[in-house]
């Protein structure tokens, strides 16, 4: 009998079935999306042996470290790797990429101990040391191809070090892989390059020359049995962290001692050698100095002797002189006596005798003469002797002089040698000091424990999946409720319609139970059938659509769906019980009546005046048919409400769908066109470039390329948000505060008014302010990357959608450098060309094009369109089914009325209009009610799906309202068209029938 009844009103049965299928399917699908996505990811992580911790040793990890790690009972497996973040270039497309290069033992990739196993998506694994495979965190936005060559970029800060660690600097891409290490299009955080690694490059272990490992990937014991999305996993990860940390401390100090000791040893050895050499040289020098001094002394003493001799000679010569004076005096005396003597002599010769006296005089004279002559001879000899002595002395002096000159030459040579030695000593000592400094500077080794949980990829995925579940809680529950309500109305209607049949059966003696059984089985078949169909479609369909929409942003395998019995049973039971329950109530109510009463038609609900009629002027103005419509609207309150709820829901879903698109599409435009006015950001290695870097100065000065630029200080600071979590924020402090707002518009989102910026300003973006709970006037502490803390008083809050920014004026923070530039391109200049020109300068470490960021971002939000489509399709289905059901009920209930007016001569069009005017009006009212619901829903969805650093627009553009309304109208018209047939088919003979 049930079967026949179903066939008899197939369309009604189908409509109950389909609304239940839709409600159950949507609920099942969305609720299972989160677990499906989680399970797929978990399965992937387990099958690929994803790491739980990535231990990075600042001084590398030794074999001993690895052994120690694997010795921990908490650790399941360890795989040491050499891993390095770096900048690479692709000469072919002149692009630079920040990559994470890891050297693997590919041969072991299938062994149980291999952590982060990869899937080869394209190509092959490297066979040569200059080959690599790539992992692209977002395959949809990448243009990497097999065969391209990546070269370690000289721009990398640590180029020399990196280059030294690898056999080759150029690697050819031979394959594309997928691993659990990079799952997010957002990339992983790094200090290299532009701060975000989007690309994994994997090379053979043999390609790496480094002596120690940099990292150890670790899996924790028991982790593979836990879902990585579970709290248990978080607990395990954080409890094991302590153990690893302790080991890290221990091993780090060993490693520090080892590294520092080795370095110290090296320095000590050099110092020893130096000291030895210094001693040698010093003693040589001392010897030379001594010799020179001895020579000097000897010469001096010789000279002294000469001087003494000279003095003696002088004395002798003066005594000779004195003697000579005596002689001269004698001579004079003699000369004076000569004439007298001569006379005497003549006299004597003449024979005259001479007196005694005279004889004595002559004798005295003669002896005097003899004495004189003897004296004179003696003097002459003395004189010659003296002069000979003088000559000898002069000779000695000359010898001394020449020795002295020689000595002087020696001495200057010595001095030179000494100066040279001293200089070299100073140099060597400085070198030694530097070397020692280096050694002293070696920071103690430290282990960084990066958990898989905290990786950008996984944590984003986890929060996104959570968002899906948040959305899943609202939408389908709403759907479910509507479905139940519609199904209920229809069931109630069925029972009402068949009251006569019930009466007949009852009067024929059928028991209440038997009759009840019939309706219950109808309801059961419809609801169970609907649940089965809905869930059979919902479980595999929705998670797939949603999962794949997310896969656009993540590099994960396609979502695997499963039929989750747990949910199926709960949803099915709730659905079936609520429908059976109300069927029971409706049935019981009817069955309570006496059979005789049942055989009579149910008293039609009497006409009533409605409130509107009391507003005379308005009521009178309405045309007759409109009056009828108005009155009918309020006559069937249940249907009225249902339709309004259904249409309002449909409209709200549509608004949400379109609004989500607006909000997200909006931010790309707002952020990069309305707020950011610069075309490039440039990082220069040094802020004295203006004087030194002509290339850059020329480019910036070229009015054909660059319109204007501003230099600023940039840093990544962090602070605590209201939940006590660390939050990153970009600190920007422009050099020229006044001109800054030409490059970045600071304005309040709510009022649209500009936020002033000057030397004393500290402006923070809205989302960040909200996250840290700061208001204008609040003081907030930020820690800069240098670990320096600054506390600033917020002077303004600005509209911003992507990333977080804190803009500081000069007086608030005096920046140590301004080596970043915001560059505005000249009108008509070519983006690529300007970029190329900017990169020409060797001092430019990177250039980021706003255009590029914008298009990348726009790409990544495209996936949202899928969600919009899902929403539209669901909204459409909801609207059509609700409207169909209610219109169907409406028509069935009023068949006689419709047949009557047909008999009265209403054209089909007029009869349709008679019914549709009500439906359309209800749809209109539904749309009106849908507006606030939609706005709320949109806000809720946006809030839920917002990523931490991104704020989506809150606006719904007016075309979206139009689209939503248009589609709702379209769905309504669609239902009208289906129903028109049904109305046309109403037999006028109905009007002759007694019942109803």
């Amino acid at each position, binding site marked *: 009998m049930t079967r026949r009844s179903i066939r008899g009103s197939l369309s009604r049965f189908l409509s109950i079935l389909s609304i239940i299928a839709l409600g159950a399917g949507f609920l099942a699908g969305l609720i299972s999306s989160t677990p499906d996505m989680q399970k797929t990811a978990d399965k992937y992580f387990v099958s690929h042996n994803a790491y739980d911790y990535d231990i990075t040793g600042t001084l590398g990890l030794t074999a001993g470290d690895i052994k120690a790690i694997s010795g921990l009972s908490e650790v399941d497996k360890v795989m040491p790797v050499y891993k390095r973040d770096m900048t690479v270039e692709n000469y072919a497309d002149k692009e630079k990429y920040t990559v994470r290069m890891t050297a693997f033992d590919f041969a072991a990739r299938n062994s149980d101990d291999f952590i982060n196993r990869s899937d080869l998506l394209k190509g092959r694994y490297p066979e040569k040391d200059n080959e690599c495979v790539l992992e692209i965190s977002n395959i949809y936005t990448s243009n990497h191809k097999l065969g391209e060559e990546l070269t370690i970029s000289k721009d990398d800060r640590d180029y020399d070090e990196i280059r030294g660690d690898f056999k080759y600097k150029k690697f050819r891409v031979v394959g594309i892989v997928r691993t659990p290490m990079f799952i997010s299009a957002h990339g992983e955080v790094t200090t290299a390059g532009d701060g975000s690694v989007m690309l994994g490059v994997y090379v053979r272990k043999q390609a790496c020359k480094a002596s120690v490992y940099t990292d150890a990937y670790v899996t924790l014991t028991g982790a593979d049995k836990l879902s990585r999305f579970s709290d248990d996993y978080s607990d395990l990860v954080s409890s094991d962290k302590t153990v690893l940390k302790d080991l890290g401390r221990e091993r780090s100090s060993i490693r520090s001692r080892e590294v520092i000791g080795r370095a110290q040893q090296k320095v000590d050895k050099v110092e020893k050698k130096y000291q030895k050499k210094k001693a040698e040289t010093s003693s040589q020098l001392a010897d030379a100095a001594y010799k020179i001094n001895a020579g000097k002394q000897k010469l001096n003493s010789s000279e002294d002797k000469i001087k003494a001799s000279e003095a003696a000679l002088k004395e002798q010569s003066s005594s000779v002189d004195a003697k000579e004076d005596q002689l001269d005096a004698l001579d004079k005396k003699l000369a004076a006596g000569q004439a007298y003597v001569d006379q005497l002599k003549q006299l004597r010769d003449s024979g005259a005798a001479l007196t005694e006296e005279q004889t004595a005089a002559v004798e005295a004279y003669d002896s005097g003469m003899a004495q004189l002559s003897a004296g004179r001879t003696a003097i002459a000899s003395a004189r010659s002797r003296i002069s000979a002595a003088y000559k000898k002395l002069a000779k000695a002096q000359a010898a001394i002089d020449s020795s002295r000159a020689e000595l002087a030459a020696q001495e200057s040579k010595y001095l030179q040698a000494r100066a040279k030695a001293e200089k070299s000593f100073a140099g060597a000592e400085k070198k030694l000091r530097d070397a020692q400094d280096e050694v002293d500077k070696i920071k103690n080794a430290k282990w960084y424990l990066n958990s898989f949980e905290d990786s950008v990829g996984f944590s984003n995925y986890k929060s996104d999946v959570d968002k899906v579940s948040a959305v899943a809680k609202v939408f389908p529950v709403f759907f479910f409720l509507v479905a139940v309500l519609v199904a209920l109305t229809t069931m109630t209607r069925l029972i009402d319609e068949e009251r006569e049949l019930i009466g007949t059966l009852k009067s024929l003696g059928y028991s209440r139970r038997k009759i009840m059984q019939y309706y219950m089985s109808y309801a059961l078949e419809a609801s169970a059938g609907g649940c089965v169909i809905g869930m059979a479609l919902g479980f595999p369909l929705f998670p797939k659509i949603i999962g794949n929409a997310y896969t656009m942003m993540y590099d994960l395998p396609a979502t695997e769906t499963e039929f989750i019995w747990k949910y199926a049973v709960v949803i099915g039971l709730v659905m079936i019980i609520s429908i059976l329950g109300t069927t029971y109530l409706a049935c019981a109510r009817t069955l309570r009546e006496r059979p005789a009463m049942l055989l009579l038609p149910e*008293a*039609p*609900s*009497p*006409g*009533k005046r409605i409130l509107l009629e009391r507003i005379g002027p308005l009521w009178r103005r309405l045309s*007759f*048919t409109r*009056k*009828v419509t108005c*009155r*009918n609207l309020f*006559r069937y309150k249940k249907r009225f409400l249902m339709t309004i709820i259904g249409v309002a829901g449909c409209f709200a879903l549509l608004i949400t769908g379109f609004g989500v698109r607006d909000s997200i599409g909006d931010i790309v435009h707002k952020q990069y066109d309305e707020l950011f006015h610069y075309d490039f950001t440039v990082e220069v290695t040094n802020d004295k470039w203006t004087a030194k870097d002509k290339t850059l100065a020329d480019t910036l000065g070229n009015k054909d390329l660059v319109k204007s630029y501003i230099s600023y200080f940039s840093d990544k600071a962090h602070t605590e948000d209201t939940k006590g979590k660390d939050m990153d924020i970009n600190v920007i402090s422009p050099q020229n505060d006044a001109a800054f707002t030409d490059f970045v518009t600071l304005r309040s989102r709510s009022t649209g008014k500009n936020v002033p910026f000057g030397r004393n300003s500290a402006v923070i973006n809205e989302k960040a302010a909200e996250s840290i709970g700061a208001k204008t006037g609040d003081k907030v502490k930020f820690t800069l990357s240098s670990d320096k803390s600054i506390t600033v008083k917020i002077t303004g809050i600005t509209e911003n959608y992507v990333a977080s920014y804190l803009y500081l004026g000069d007086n608030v923070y005096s920046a140590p450098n301004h080596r970043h530039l915001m560059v505005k391109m000249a009108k008509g200049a070519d983006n690529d060309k300007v970029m190329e020109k900017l990169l020409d300068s060797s001092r430019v470490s990177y250039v980021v094009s706003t255009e590029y960021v914008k298009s990348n971002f726009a790409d990544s939000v495209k996936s949202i369109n899928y969600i919009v489509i899902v929403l539209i399709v669901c909204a459409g289905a909801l609207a059509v089914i609700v409207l169909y059901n209610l219109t169907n009920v409406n028509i069935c209930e009023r068949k*006689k*009325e419709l047949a*009557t*007016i*047909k*008999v*009265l*001569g*209403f*054209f*089909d069009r*007029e009869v349709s209009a008679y019914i549709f005017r009500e439906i359309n009006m209800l749809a209109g009212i539904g749309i009106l009610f849908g507006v606030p619901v939609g706005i709320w829903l949109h806000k809720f969805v946006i809030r839920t799906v917002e990523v931490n650093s991104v704020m989506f627009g809150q606006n719904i553009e007016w075309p979206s309202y139009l689209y939503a309304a248009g589609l709702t109208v379209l769905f309504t018209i669609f239902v009208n068209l289906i129903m028109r047939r049904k109305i046309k088919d109403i037999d*006028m*003979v109905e*009007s*002759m*029938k*007694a019942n109803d």
Partner: protein
Amino acid sequence: MAGYIEFQNVSKFYKMGGQRISALDDMNFEIAKGEFCVIVGPSGAGKTTLLNILGGMDRCDEGRVYLDGREIGGLDTRGLTEYRRYDVGFVFQFYNLVQNLTALENVELASEICRDPLDCRAVLREVGLEDRMDNFPAQLSGGEQQRVAIARALAKNPKVLLCDEPTGALDYSTGKTILQLLHDTCRRFGKTVIVITHNQAIVPMADKVISVKNGKAVRVEINNDPEPIERIEW
């Protein structure tokens, strides 16, 4: 006088299972303008089919049907609708008032769509519902409801008033007053009134009686001296 309404060799067949059953079998009759005509017959005689065809709700398979010189048997759906709209006033056994409309509005509902309607209030006054115009059907008695239905049919100013068992759901005396009203209408407005009933008792009041049996008009009687309603009893 040529028939205002004419049935010429009208046949109508239904298929039931594999069998063809003729509901009307070569039926012929004429009704003159202004006549009060009663079509009478037992259940299954073909009254309803006759009513359907006469009321423009169905087409005949063979033969011709004329109203005021116009062939209605060959009209298409739209033509039939127009015919119902402009030419026929229908009074149902169960009144078929729109519950959600007041008496006046129920009348207006019909007059809305006519070319040349009568004043609705006047018609309601005419059927004696002056004080109940603003009442909803649920607030009216059966007789009053039928009066509204008659007023609704009349207000359209149709060429013919077609009444299907108009007293079928009414008690004896109310039925009588309704018949009186229909009779008065026929006389006062000069309307052709056709009453279809199985109640032989009311036959005497008719100007013309057409007896139907097995799909045929077995007898057409002209009653030159119809009896007043008050004297008829059943």
